């Protein structure tokens, strides 16, 4: 029994499955539609975006940094691609490439502000987030740009198993990141960077490079998520409100899934489960006939609980 407890304490990504399943049962008891195939596929479609981005975020947070500009980068990339195509007559593939390069650039800026200048990444990325979200509003005057050429909606129109292309892409990325973290030198370098930067440096790990790549991966996946969101929406609009508040779902998700704010801890699988957990809460509140405005408070509460747990665990490990 004690052993089991210890195991769950060590493996938060497994432990979290217990409340996760209980929660599903609870919402199911409120409304049987919770486990309806239609509901499930809709939930999986929704999970795909935050989960995709969380696969960058988990690496970044293990490396000891954080990115709160993710959702803003999503909307920026969506709007910018629409703008390029509509107002500047770029072809779809050209626009996609330019936009994704921009997302990488935003990651570089975040890394530079954080590591080279020394601004806390929380603050630095809130700043870049405001800037790019603001730019998406100004590009559009707040009105979505659409329609796009049909080819833009191609990936969005793919719906294997009635889910979405993005979902399966996300699963592939999650699998890849899990392997990276557990079985490659890149993985050990990230954990070392986040756990003890000096030790990593002394071992010859370029921790700036590690953080740079993690920031870039997070922004890049955010950019992809923005474009994919757009491709799945009717009329493929470059809408500045794409991904609104999603950075909180991602943050809460990875922390619920066992990633530590202190760096050096976490897994891809855990993050995936954590993000799913958050989405179950969101969808469950709607399906279970609760006041839908309770979603944000519930999310905030979950985030606080998860962070509190992280802090307590960290202090305990230090003692």
């Amino acid at each position, binding site marked *: 029994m004690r052993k089991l407890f210890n195991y769950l304490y060590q493996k938060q990504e497994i432990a979290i499955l217990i409340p996760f399943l209980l929660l599903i049962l609870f919402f199911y008891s409120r409304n049987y539609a919770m486990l309806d195939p239609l509901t499930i596929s809709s939930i999986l479609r929704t999970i795909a975006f935050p989960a995709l981005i969380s696969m960058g975020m988990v690496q970044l947070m293990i490396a000891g940094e954080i990115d709160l500009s993710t959702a803003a980068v999503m909307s920026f990339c969506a709007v910018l691609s629409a703008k390029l195509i509509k107002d500047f007559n770029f072809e779809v593939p050209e626009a996609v490439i330019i936009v994704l390069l921009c997302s990488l650039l935003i990651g570089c800026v975040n890394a530079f502000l954080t590591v080279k200048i020394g601004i806390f990444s929380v603050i630095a990325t809130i700043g870049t987030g405001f800037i790019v979200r603001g730019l998406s509003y100004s590009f559009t005057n707040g009105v979505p740009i659409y329609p796009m050429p049909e080819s833009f909606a191609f990936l969005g129109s793919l719906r294997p198993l009635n889910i979405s292309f993005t979902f399966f892409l996300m699963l592939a990325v999650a699998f890849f990141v899990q392997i990276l973290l557990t*079985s490659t030198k890149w993985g050990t370098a990230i954990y*070392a960077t986040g*756990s003890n930067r*000096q*030790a990593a440096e002394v071992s*010859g*790990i370029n921790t700036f490079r590690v953080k740079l790549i993690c920031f870039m991966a997070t922004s890049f996946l955010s950019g992809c998520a923005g474009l994919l969101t757009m491709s799945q929406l009717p009329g493929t609009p470059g809408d500045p409100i794409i991904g609104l508040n999603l950075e909180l779902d991602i943050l809460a998700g990875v922390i619920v899934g066992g990633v530590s704010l202190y760096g*050096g801890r976490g897994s891809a699988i855990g993050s995936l489960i954590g993000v799913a957990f958050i989405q179950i809460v969101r969808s469950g509140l709607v399906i279970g006939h609760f006041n839908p405005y309770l979603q944000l408070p519930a999310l905030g509460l979950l985030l606080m609980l998860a962070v509190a747990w992280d802090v307590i665990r960290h202090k305990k490990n230090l003692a």
Partner: protein
Amino acid sequence: MVSDNTKLPILQTKNIDKSFGHVQALKNVDIDLYPSEVVALIGDNGAGKSTLIKIISGIYQKDSGEILYKGNKVEINEPKDAVDKAGISTVYQDLSLVEVQDVGVNIYLNMEPTFMGLFINYKKLYRDAEKLIKNLKIDLPSVRVNVAELSGGQRQGVAIARALARGREIFILDEPTAALGVEQQANINSLILKLKEDKKTVLLISHNLEHVFEVADRLIILRRGEKVGERTKKSTNKEEIVGLITGAIK
């Protein structure tokens, strides 16, 4: 002078000066280190011991003077230079290990054996780590336990194993036994002697004269930033050393 000068020193400092504002922490400090020897750097609090090893390790910059590795001048501007240019490994008890990772991964961090340069060959990694730990006679439950679960002495051992795995020749240990119990101190001592047996050089900082006399071949005494003496263990005794440390003997 006092040591086996038929060999070339592996590391030398010449006329090292270092000031912090008005405090002159080091004045004209010359030291020579030879292969296969254990040298103790001793002196009162504030004598400049830590400053000297931080300069050698690339953490502080000297104001003037030279550092020579095997007779050639080297510029040590950052910790990486000390490692790459002079084979120096400074073992800090807490700074050099990654708590969340296990012993094996810590020892081979960033030099993990891989399959096709891609996936870490954990089997080989743990096997090699085990061999190393066994060879150094470090007392550990397993090379798969996380460093967070180890005692101070065990961490010290792992840090040394880590440096050894990286082919370092010069080991600088700053107060390695400060926080350790008697048994663990004894373990560190045998570890230091093992390093010497393997033809390594150990520069040891310690307050504990008992400890120093057990393992060191030679003692270098600093007082207020100056080298005030250098003795082989055979040619001195504790009274003389205490006199040098306190300034009673000039």
